[in-house]
């Protein structure tokens, strides 16, 4: 028989064991960081024709600034010994446009980014013999050094966003079919729910609306007005069409205008009509299925998506398909170090922009020259990055995201860097979620899980597990178009 140990040894000759941590962080610094800044694009001021264009972002090597003002490269061991933070300066290219007059482009240091040891911008990257720099040659890296303490970002296991999950729920003693979708767009998460009520009428719930609204009303608000179009968009199955006809029958509005006003009355009761409509359009575009788009043009695509959710609900009701298994690993996504860093960076960066805006406006009022280098207070961003990293209290109230790494022995270190935690509450039983699911084969270790209240919720990667990353949507869309797929009109 083939000696498989040969393969195993070959596999582990590289820093495979914490590869996922390093890859994820590298991806963050190489791609996502720029993305977050591009999402923002410009900083608009409350002064006419005055704004800041945000350009390229660049990262330095980890450095330390001494009390006397000198700066030198920082190596991990020095950070550990001197209780420093292993972090790099972030440089951002900015251009202020002052009342239509573009100013000189400048590189501004906007803050310090904690750097993962042995990542691409680490001073140890590519160094063969790290012992020269006082490192343990076997140290895998993959963690951060914050104020001298080594902290790892623990991988978070989450329900897959932007996916329709079908469930059967119990409401008032009756089973109710529900299609849920956690729609996610750059950090914002909106839960959209379509559910069948007792009379087979579909109702839609999403953030910002106080009560569920009828499915047909929502479709009309999205611009699908005629009965026929609504029914056909959902399904061509005669049984489902029958239900849909009932739905159309009881609809409370007939046209898009009425539908939007109807929603307006829900989200802004007692306000003027113009305000109601404005608020309703805003809610529809920004809080309803934001992952498809937040522009008006995306509405038709949203209608198709919503119709698919409706179809799924009826299919489950009619027994054409089964409930989705929430614990199936296909329905899970992992948030690794890079994704987590992106979350705090986005929030910190928005905060910085707010501050810069304030500073620039103040400078303008005082008649000073608008310069980014004076407007940026780099501590604003740095503090908001360091604080979550140092305490583990992430944005959104999650705790224990960054943890002091377990150095009891070499294996406990490796195990810690490969840990995956589920955000489910420890106090409730959640029997199903704690089970070892067959789809975890090859991905999650079947044996390593703590005993006690965290059993089955805290997991570890399987030995040969590799983490794949998402692909840019547009790439796939282009491939599909080139294969002859027709786009949804209006997109």
């Amino acid at each position, binding site marked *: 028989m083939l000696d498989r140990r040969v393969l195993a040894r070959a596999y582990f000759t590289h820093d495979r064991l914490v590869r996922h941590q390093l890859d994820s962080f590298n991806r963050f610094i190489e791609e996502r960081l720029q993305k977050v800044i591009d999402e923002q694009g410009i900083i608009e001021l409350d002064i006419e024709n005055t704004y800041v264009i945000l350009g390229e972002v660049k990262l330095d090597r980890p450095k330390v600034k001494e009390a006397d003002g000198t700066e030198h490269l920082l190596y991990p061991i020095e950070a550990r010994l001197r209780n420093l933070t292993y972090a790099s300066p972030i440089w951002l290219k900015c251009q202020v446009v002052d009342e239509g007059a573009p100013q000189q482009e400048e590189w501004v240091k906007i803050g310090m980014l904690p750097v993962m040891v042995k990542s691409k911008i680490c001073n140890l990257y590519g160094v063969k013999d790290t012992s020269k720099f006082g490192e343990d040659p076997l140290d895998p890296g993959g963690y951060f050094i914050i104020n001298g303490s080594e902290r790892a970002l623990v991988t978070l296991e989450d329900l897959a966003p932007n996916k329709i999950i079908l469930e059967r729920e119990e409401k008032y003693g009756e089973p109710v079919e529900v299609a849920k979708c956690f729609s996610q767009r750059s950090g914002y998460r909106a839960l959209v729910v379509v559910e069948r009520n007792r009379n087979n009428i579909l109702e839609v719930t999403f953030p910002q609306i106080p009560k569920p609204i009828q499915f047909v009303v929502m479709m009309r608000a999205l611009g699908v007005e005629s009965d026929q179009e609504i029914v056909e968009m959902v399904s061509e199955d005669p049984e489902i069409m029958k239900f849909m006809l009932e739905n159309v029958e009881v609809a409370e509005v007939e046209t898009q205008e009425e539908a939007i006003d109807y929603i307006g009355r829900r989200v802004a009761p007692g306000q003027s009509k113009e305000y109601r409509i404005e608020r309703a359009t805003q809610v529809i575009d920004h809080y309803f299925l934001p992952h498809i788009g937040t522009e008006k043009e995306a509405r038709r695509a949203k209608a198709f998506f919503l119709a698919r959710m409706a179809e799924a609900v009826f299919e489950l009701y009619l027994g054409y398909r*089964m409930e989705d*298994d929430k*614990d*199936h690993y*296909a329905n899970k996504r992992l948030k690794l170090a890079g994704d987590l860093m992106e979350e705090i960076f986005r929030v910190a960066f928005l905060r910085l922009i707010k501050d810069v805006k304030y500073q620039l406006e103040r400078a303008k009022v005082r008649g000073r020259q608008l310069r980014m280098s004076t407007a940026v207070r780099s501590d604003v961003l740095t503090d908001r990055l360091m604080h979550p990293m140092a305490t583990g209290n992430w944005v959104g109230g999650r705790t224990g995201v960054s943890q002091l790494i377990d150095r009891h022995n070499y294996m406990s270190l490796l195990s810690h860097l490969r840990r995956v935690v589920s955000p489910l509450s420890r*106090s409730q*039983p959640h*029997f199903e979620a*704690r*089970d*070892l*699911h*067959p*789809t975890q*084969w090859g991905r999650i270790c*079947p*044996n390593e*899980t703590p*005993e*006690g*209240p965290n*059993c*089955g919720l805290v997991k570890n990667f399987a030995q040969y597990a590799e983490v794949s990353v998402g692909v840019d949507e547009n790439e796939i869309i282009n491939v599909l178009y080139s294969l002859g797929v027709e786009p949804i009109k209006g997109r």
Partner: protein
Amino acid sequence: MTPKRISGIKFEVLSPQEIRRMSVAKIFTPETYSDDGYPIESGLMDPRLGVVDPGLRCRTCGGKAGECPGHFGHIELAAPVIHVGYAKLIARLLNGTCRECGRILLKDERRDKYISQIEKLKELGQNYDEIVKEVFRVTKAVKKCPHCGADQIEVKFEKPTFYYEGDHKLTPKDVRERLEKIPDEDLPAFGIDPKACRPEWFVLTVLPVPPVTVRPSIILETGQRSEDDLTHKLVDIIRINQRFLENKEAGAPQLILEDLWELLQYHVTTYLDNEVSGIPPARHRSGRPLKTLAQRLKGKEGRFRGSLSGKRVNFSARTVISPDPNLSINEVGVPKVIAEELTVPIYVTPNNIEEAREYILRTEHPKANYVIRPDGRRIRVIDANREELAEKLEPGWIVERQLKDGDIVLFNRQPSLHRMSIMAHYVRVLPYKTFRLNPAVCPPYNADFDGDEMNLHVPQSIEAQAEAKILMAVQEHILSPRFGGPIIGGIHDHISGLYLLTRGEKLFSKEEVMELIRPINVEKIPEPKYDGKWTGKQIFSMILPDITLEFKAEICQGCEKCEGENCPHDAYVVIRNGELIKGTIDEKAVGAFKGIIIDEIVRKYGTEEAKKFIDNMTQLAIRAIMFFGFTVGIDDEDIPKEAREQIEEIMNEAEKKVEELIEAYKAGNLEPMPGRSLEETLEMKIMQVLGKARDQAGKIASQYLGMDNAAVIMAVSGARGSMLNLTQMAACIGQQSVRGERIRRGYAYSNRTLPHFKPGDLGARARGFVRSSYKRGLTPVEFFFHAVGGREGLVDTAVRTSQSGYLQRRLINALQDLKVEYDGTVREQTSGIIVQFKYGEDGVDPMKSFRGRGVDVKRIIKEVLAEKEG
């Protein structure tokens, strides 16, 4: 001072007058201390409210810190505010009374009917909540006042403290005015006693300020004062209150006043409860939510659960436990360092003054740590004052002497789920750092030695010590009230040891016998049975008291026709007049939970004798097992090739049968069992076939393993493990299950558990059947399924422990006041309400019952027959 008896406690609502009456100071200055560090008059630290700083005297009572209990002050609120705690009741009252005339929305006759119903229930001491609830329900529905004819508008209550009448918002002042109008005569219908509380008192106009002793400030190392959360909150209230007053006097616009009013309401609400839903909690500057009144009381660390139901104690110790078979079961080994710290008080009298003096003069182990003078001063005994204290010692002093051998202590392991979780042991001071206990007392504590820790408490009064010795001593708990049998007895090696010793007719020379009974006090040695040699059964008989018993042992095979004394397996135990005549001693005879012999000895000779027997039995057993030698290894599970082939055969056949079942199911030929669907029938049948296959495999394996196999000995004698464990090691592990079903989750979208199988595969292997044995090893797929099944077990234990704790709490809360009186009834302690006329409906003490039954008929018959014969 003569002690006073509290006959009852009544809760009432403080009226504004009452608050002012008990107040010693009106507080209206938001500052606490002046610049020179003295408390400001009429500030929150007003010296009239009591003292916390040492050296100062209270301006009200003249007491020093520690003596002065503190005194209430009060704040006159500029405008009434709702008390959150009563917000819901206010809402109900508003809806239950007329908005014009304030009368209850019921005709007088109906009102009186409800009132008399409530009175009657009150008299019976029963709960009348239901009726009150009904009154609120009925009155809420009334649209027109039956008294003045005014139309009623429903008052909508919005959490936490807002009331709306249609779109119009009711101010607390409006609310108070309405509540004032409710006449006293109507209140009893709402379950309110008008003498105890008027509903308008639910709207605060005066706020009591708790004494400083309730909210002491702490001085940080930096010398800075840090105020209590309550003080912070009160400062907020006063500040807003003063601002409100000023604005009102200055004639500020209504809008501003309303804003301030709402802010005042917010502060008062969060002062009372900072976790009300609907409003953000008040926070400290650091962002930490403040701990206000309700938070002090609520929850596990709150006043009730944390300070009254349970508290921290002195004279206790905790450390890791380890076994010591040389201790008696009612002893505990206490590390010397702990014994030197824990003390027992000696109340000095003319009779023991010399003994006490000796302890003071001693310089090592059992010496005195402290002496307490009659004036309550505690003096540590050190070299410098030893002589002097010994000299001064007089009756009336208390000497705290170190723990020594023979002292009685309480020993406890959490979770304390039954009364055997705390038992009294006698101290044996030993070297090293762990508590030592006899392994035979592990079962009642549910302890093992994998790092468990236990607590030890030293009873301080003579009464407590006597009670511990008489009621709580280990031997008093050999019989468990859980099931009316022994809970202390032989475990693990004790059982294997006696099994080896007593099985068959093993012979021992004199030297060997002496070696075995060396640690045991045996007074009379019987005549050797064969030619100067004793049998194992004879040796065991030496420690037996005079009892007569007959029973089937654990190893009983359950033959169709029991041969009784002539059992071919030596599984029928016969003990006559304290002599083991036939049968093998195993778990059924001496084990914890089962031990029939122990049971008999306790009942016939009492607990002391039983304790001696258990001590001797465990000593003998350990000697015996060491004499024979006992070991288990991996090769104990080896089975010969032909056995393996047979098992293989069985497995193949079973898998084939499963295939056939599936075929039949698919072809629609499967007959559903009554009350089951076709799928369920198939699953059950498959489980049955596979279960049977494993049993067969196990049987074959055990045939080949034979009765001399150490693992088999442990399994059949009940020492540890089961035949199922052995089957899994030697033959076949069997079906893995999750929640009682075969494993079915997995790649549900293609209807299979793993991609290793074809979609829709229902076969044995695809659904978690493990045909390999632990010895031979599992295939990767089997290994994975085994992990799936194993995970369920882990989760189960984790969830169960947390749930059992909660269940325990609820049970205790429900039953804590019940007591069995001397007349045999079960009554509620305070009210004397009878819960059961006879305890357990049969009056049987479960500890003294015969495995739960009150009378053991067979035993009585046997006893009577024996009397007749003898």
